[in-house]
């Protein structure tokens, strides 16, 4: 197994499965965040946040998610260093004029670093306040007719998106993410070997659609929260 993980394809395999796992997480994250656009003073969002905070499956998945991020970032750094070494020190004086190569595919590490920078801000703004410093006020909502006391996550989200700079940071983060995924999704599936002349075109379309959904979805939530829900 150590032999497998030290091989080039083994390391790429890890990048691929962690990357695709993180995409499934993003889908869950986006669908829950979409509840922020329901104009009910945040009741539905708070109910969903309460469900996520108390669900045992989510408690198990949280460290798995963290491991997913760490493995993805660690192996990305390792592979990037090894690839630079394989490329060698000498550069072409006439540059590289190869057409039809997307910018994203050549700059996945830089785009990834943008996402990481965003992630740090994001974690400091929400996760830390939810879980560590516990800055949430209690509020009462009805869940399936039962009057329940829950933490008012909506109030924190709403207040945070009240700042314009936060919205700008989130839009930049979303664009970085979308760009990363525009290459990442199909590339991950190609690395798993799940590609041929037909499937390659299909995956590229799927990857583009996923990128647009994520980019537009996350930016729209931040923008709409700022301009229409304050």
């Amino acid at each position: 197994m150590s032999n497998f993980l030290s091989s080039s394809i083994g390391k790429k395999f890890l990048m691929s499965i962690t990357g695709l796992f993180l995409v499934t997480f993003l889908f869950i994250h986006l669908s829950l965040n979409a509840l922020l656009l329901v104009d009910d003073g945040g009741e539905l969002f708070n109910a969903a946040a309460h469900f996520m905070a108390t669900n045992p499956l989510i408690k198990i998945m949280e460290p798995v998610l963290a491991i997913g991020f760490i493995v993805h970032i660690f192996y990305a750094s390792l592979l990037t260093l090894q690839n630079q070494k394989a490329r060698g020190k000498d550069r072409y004086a006439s540059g590289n004029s190869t057409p039809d190569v997307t910018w994203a595919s050549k700059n996945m590490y830089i785009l990834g670093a943008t996402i990481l920078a965003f992630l740090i801000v994001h974690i400091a703004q929400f996760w830390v306040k939810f879980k560590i410093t516990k800055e949430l006020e209690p509020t009462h909502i009805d869940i399936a007719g039962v009057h329940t006391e829950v933490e008012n996550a909506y109030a924190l989200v709403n207040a945070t998106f009240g700042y314009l700079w936060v919205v700008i940071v989130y839009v930049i983060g979303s664009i970085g993410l979308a760009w990363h995924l525009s290459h990442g999704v199909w590339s991950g599936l190609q690395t798993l070997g799940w590609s041929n002349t037909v499937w390659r075109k299909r995956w590229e379309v799927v990857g583009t659609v996923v990128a647009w959904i994520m980019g537009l979805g996350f930016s729209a939530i931040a923008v709409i929260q700022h301009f229409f829900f304050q």
Partner: protein
Amino acid sequence: MEKTINLKLKVWRQDGPKAKGHFETYEVKNISTDSSFLEMMDVLNEQLIQEGKEPVAFDHDCREGICGMCSMYINGHAHGPDEDVTTCQLHMRKFKDGETVTVEPWRSAGFPIIKDLMVNRNAFDQIIAAGGYVSVGTGGVPDANAIPISKEDADEAMDAASCIGCGACVATCKNGSAMLFVSAKVSQLALLPQGKVERARRAKRMVAKMDELGFGSCTNTGACEVECPKGVSITNIARMNREYLMAKFKD
């Protein structure tokens, strides 16, 4: 009527593997647009010999695009600006009169420079030696259609087998990865009955050798298939990944 052009050439000169290289600028005149890039280089070398200078060392052999020896990086492209041709098949009509043409060797840690535009591509031979062959007895020539092979498999195997091992993929790849080459060799054999017997062993050994020689890994930019003079597709890389992962998971 024959048209001729004059060119300014910026050529990489390097005395040996350890020597420090530099660009030298030369002028060539009255180059027929019907001639090939290598013929133009021959004209340059004749000129240099006349002037009592050292001619430019470059690899070449068949000069018809099948041996994979010629290996020049011209104006930002492996094998020059034309598509699906090797340097020897590149016509001078692709260049404008008075243009400055930059000619460099393949640059990749896996391909150290021997002299001027010549690089050592022995790493490819080592990868082939690690498993790019059939070593089981396959008997005599079978009767036609005794072993049916689908048209798709035959076509894809043939397309993969068109790889001439020139190294343009490595020269182009931002990661210095040899995966297009290795995957073409893995694919051409894995798709056909004679090669299927040893497919798992072959994939493992060739990938291990490729890693050992320090080639990079694939980030699926697709630059290699664009510059490949034979148009070998990166779907072969997906097949190699599949072959390798299946072989490893079976262990």
